[in-house]
């Protein structure tokens, strides 16, 4: 299956969280769950090249991702993607991706509700990212991971996970 397949595009549009698996430089498996946006036939993730996942990608750019299709009726399938990841540091790419992430996760009714419910913690979250940026400044920081899809496959959910 390819990115252009309507089934794949529809499933990605419904998905909120991806699980990203990488291999560390020593070949150890790593997983993270992350926000993402689809733009121009690629998956974009806000995570820096200085994180453990970032260092993994420098050594092993091949990654695997799972998408759950969380929005709408519960899907009986999970989508797995394989691809190659690189980091992008251009400000135009970062701006485009950050805007996409803000639209998808914050500028929606549930997103705003979530922010308002935790309004007192928002300044702490802002400091969390500022702290990361300060610590990595001047180290060739690139904050956007771009994954070029190579293959997609649907996995029947029922074969592995009971309905929650």
């Amino acid at each position, binding site marked *: 299956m390819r990115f252009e397949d309507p089934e794949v595009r529809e499933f990605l549009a419904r998905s*909120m*969280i991806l*699980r990203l*698996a*990488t*291999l560390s430089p020593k*070949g*150890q*498996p*790593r*997983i*993270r*769950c992350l926000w993402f946006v689809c733009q121009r036939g690629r998956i974009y993730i806000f995570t820096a090249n200085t994180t453990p996942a970032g260092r993994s990608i420098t050594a*092993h750019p*091949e*990654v*695997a*991702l*799972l998408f*759950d299709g*969380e929005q709408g009726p519960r899907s009986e399938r*999970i989508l*797995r993607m394989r691809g190659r990841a690189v980091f992008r540091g251009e400000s135009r790419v970062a701006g485009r991706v950050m805007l996409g992430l803000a639209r998808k*996760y*914050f500028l929606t009714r*549930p*997103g705003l509700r*979530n*922010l308002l*419910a*935790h309004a007192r*913690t928002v300044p*702490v*979250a802002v*400091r*969390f990212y500022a*702290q990361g940026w300060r610590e990595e400044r001047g180290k060739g920081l690139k904050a956007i991971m771009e994954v070029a899809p190579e293959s997609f496959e649907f*996995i029947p*959910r029922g*074969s*592995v*996970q*009971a309905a*929650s």
Partner: protein
Amino acid sequence: MKRITNRVDPEKMWDLLEKVPRACIAFNNAGTVELVPVECRVEEGRFWIGMPGGGREPVPGSGEPVKLLIDEGMHYFDMRGIWIRGRAAVSEEQPEGGSPALTWFQLAPETFVAWDFGAMREVRKR
């Protein structure tokens, strides 16, 4: 010196382990990273991982390092989870109520790391 963290004591995530919302594992399959959704159960301190058998999905080699991720939430302050690094070995047994259609592994945990974006706070830097 203080810093902001979303890390929490893994003990605070036992509710996630008792009723796993979603789980997957990653492992190294001869140089290729594999990522497989799994059924996960924790019973009396034993970690069970159920995976489709019969060659439908790749499975880790017995004793190979794996990383198990259990998480929930999709909006910022709702996101929380735990990852467990350990070694998985095929088991002849299966957990109570576990599907016999799955191949069951037992995970020997080595490291636990938990996070909760809703619990983000300032802590003293160690």
